[in-house]
């Protein structure tokens, strides 16, 4: 990896928030220090409040604010994954409508708004573009019963977890960040990633494992 990528993983160096994705897609915004992290968490909690305002009051101005923040990101995400402009545009509208309709299913204790919207966009993309179903464990399945509910005070909000996770991702070594980026942005199978990077499949998998463990370690027991 080049010199700059190593620098971006060095504590104390700030890089631009949205680096040109075509050049170094594996570089992430770097925010250091508690203050910056807290501001990310605060922003995340403000977004969560918007979803709650929709759920509780069908608040249209909250929806407009949410749309302005997320619609261009959802569109950017879908286009990175290969959707054409028109497809992405239609899907964005579909995703944002789903956000409005399912607002009451959003749980700020469990996930950040960006995570929730990411899963909606992922599922709509699989449904509409790939014409497949996405099997997920059924929350009403008796097999899932008996899982202890985390106590509210012992746990961070989804937005706080997200802020920690963002920090963890920003400090990943470039080779690990790269496979994470390719997994999420490029809709590539691991074998395709291996081919693109010219490395063995086992290396792709071990980099993902290391990246994931690092992220888990920094988030601590927030999900426990």
């Amino acid at each position: 990896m080049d010199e700059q990528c190593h620098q971006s993983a060095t504590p104390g160096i700030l890089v631009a928030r949205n680096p040109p994705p075509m050049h170094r897609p594996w570089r992430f915004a770097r925010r250091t220090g508690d203050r910056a992290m807290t501001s990310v968490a605060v922003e995340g909690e403000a977004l969560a409040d918007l979803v709650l305002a929709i759920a509780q009051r069908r608040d249209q101005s909250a929806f407009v604010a949410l749309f302005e923040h997320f619609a261009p990101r959802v569109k950017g995400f879908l286009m990175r994954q290969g959707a054409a402009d028109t497809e992405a545009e239609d899907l964005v509208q579909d995703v944002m409508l789903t956000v409005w309709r399912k607002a009451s299913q959003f749980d700020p204790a469990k996930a950040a708004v960006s995570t929730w919207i990411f899963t909606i966009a992922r599922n709509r993309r699989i449904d509409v573009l790939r014409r497949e179903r996405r099997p997920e464990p059924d929350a009403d399945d008796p097999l899932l019963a008996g899982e202890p509910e985390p106590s509210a005070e012992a746990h961070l909000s989804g937005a706080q977890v997200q802020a920690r996770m963002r920090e963890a991702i920003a400090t990943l070594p470039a080779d690990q960040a790269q496979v994470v980026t390719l997994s999420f942005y490029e809709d590539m199978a691991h074998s395709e990633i291996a081919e693109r990077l010219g490395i063995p499949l086992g290396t792709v998998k071990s980099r993902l494992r290391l990246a994931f463990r690092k992220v888990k370690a920094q988030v601590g027991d927030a999900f426990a």
Partner: protein
Amino acid sequence: MTVKHHPSEAVLFAYAAGGLGEGLSLLVAAHLSFCPSCRRSVAEAEAVGGVMMEEIAPVAVRPDSLDRVLANLDGAPVPNRAATPAPPRPTPASAARSTDTPPLPSVLSAYVGDLSGARWQWVAPGVRQLDLVHRAQGRDSAKLLRIAPGRVLPHHGHAGLEMTVVLSGSFTDEQGRFTRGDLAELDSDAQHQPIADSGEDCICLIGTDAPLRFSGLVPRMMAPMLGF
């Protein structure tokens, strides 16, 4: 019940990212139904996806995009699922009345109903199958296999990723012993030969993202019968 064999982090990541096809996703979802710790890992990987969505370079939507969505907001909101009882399902797999098989994860109910009425296809002596996800020229497939006690699945390698989730009974292969809820994951270089090793049929879900390669003459003749 403790699940001992789990998918790799890479597979959980791919599932969370939406990078697995329907067949392999079904395998992961079945395992998740048994495994709280992998459900937690998937939630974490989805949070990584959320970060990735926040970090992406935004692309401007069309000027009329917001208005078009606002014009459609009057559709009925979806109520909070906690507030409404689950609708009755026609034949939930988990309510299968079969006395000899424990309930299937209900994620399978969209694919297969009560197993006691299932039409198993004969594959080989002691081996039967039921197709769940089958793509003519698709990326992956998933099927149920029912293996009689002591029977061996033909020795096979495969070009892509193969996963197996045990739903009932157990099997042993080169990696160890797999019981209900366990997931075996094999990359293309792996060869394995599972043996149903308890006194009951082993029912397992098997999925691949590329055709299986059977080695040896007889198994090669069986490959078309297995339909992989």
